[in-house]
């Protein structure tokens, strides 16, 4: 037990994937904000992408289960809204994985976003910019739906937040 460090925990958390986007980890998504260790108790702070996201419940369970495997006796998963999660925290590696998953990564922004930014999506399948916004809302809270005029396929983009 004395060997265990917070770095081990961060590294183990790379194994915990986003339940709705199983190619990226919660760490890469910027959802895990803080980890600390006190004797044999681990405390992990996470922040929700969208407050109403139902994936928060399995995320907590999977984080707890993964850290318990490291030999700690209790895991406390806390939720914080401050500072609020932003898509700017998604790592470059995760953005590439989102694209290969068929989900366009969110456009970069500096804190505010408007309809022009949201409408300018790049097709993750063919890379075309000749796309149209179909609906602001999609299959999960974090996605909008688009159509690509070039490859004539529907696709989704992660909403800038």
């Amino acid at each position, binding site marked *: 037990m004395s060997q265990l460090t917070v770095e081990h925990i961060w590294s183990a958390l790379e194994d915990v994937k986003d339940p709705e986007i199983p190619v990226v980890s919660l760490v890469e998504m910027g959802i895990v904000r803080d980890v600390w260790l006190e004797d044999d108790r681990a405390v992990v702070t996470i922040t929700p992408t969208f*407050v*109403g996201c139902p994936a928060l419940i399995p995320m907590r369970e999977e984080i707890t289960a993964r850290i318990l495997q490291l030999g700690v006796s209790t895991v406390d998963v806390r939720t914080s809204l401050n500072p609020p*999660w932003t898509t700017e925290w998604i790592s470059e590696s995760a953005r590439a994985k989102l694209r290969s998953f068929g989900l366009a990564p969110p456009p970069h922004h500096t804190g505010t976003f408007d309809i022009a930014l*949201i409408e300018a999506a790049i097709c993750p399948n063919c890379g075309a910019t000749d796309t149209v916004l179909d609906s602001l*809302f999609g299959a999960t*809270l974090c996605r909008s739906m688009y159509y690509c005029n070039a490859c004539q396929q529907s696709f989704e983009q992660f909403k800038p937040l």
Partner: protein
Amino acid sequence: MGIESAAQAAAPLRDALREFLTAMADDELLLGHRDSEWTGHAPILEEDIAFSNLAQDEMGHALTWYTLAAARELGAPDPDRAAFFRNAGEFRNATLVELPKGDWAFTIVRRYLFDASEQVRYAALAESAYRPIADAVAKLRREETYHLLHSRGWVQRLGDATEESHHRMQAALDVAWPHALGLFEPTEGESTLVAADIKPPENTLREQWLAQVKPILEAATLVVPDAAQMAGGGRSGQHTQHLADLLNEMQKVARMEPEATW
């Protein structure tokens, strides 16, 4: 000087905070419930999905506000008890959100009037001296951006699309308007909150809201009704029969087995 938590709030502020937080939570919960009534029934698939998303977002927002109201010092019930085990007279929502879902025009008009109200409310609350409110709003207002883009776009399209759409939108606006003004009815103890810089007066928010919605509605060729005719009462627990009917449906399963764990 900021108030970091409920424990730091002076005693007279606590009741006022509970009332205000409960009002915001109740608005979100009930409008979310009305949104969810479109799941499986919306006119097109994209909107079926959109309203299901809106419902889910608002459940999350309601949970956020109920959780703040349930701080030990404020004394509101925990979120599940608040949602499923209070009677109509204990709800503090504006009557706008309890009205039946109506037709598509009413759904869109109500959504737009509400979304615009949240935009001005949340912008003001971002500066709240009560830190838990300012923190929550920093998060929620980004999500609300999508709600407003969605409903405003529909208002702009339907207001003057066809004779029928115009007629329906105008009829919906005439019904919704007095109830929408009720969103700005002060909750009990508002002056205490205003004095502590926790929130601006509702009158100020209403003026900001009017300045936003009037040009949009007028550009959509709709006639904006009189701003003096408020249908109030919701913030003090006086509701239409529609709320009791809604709660009867929404709370029925939870009340069948009150101690069940879901």
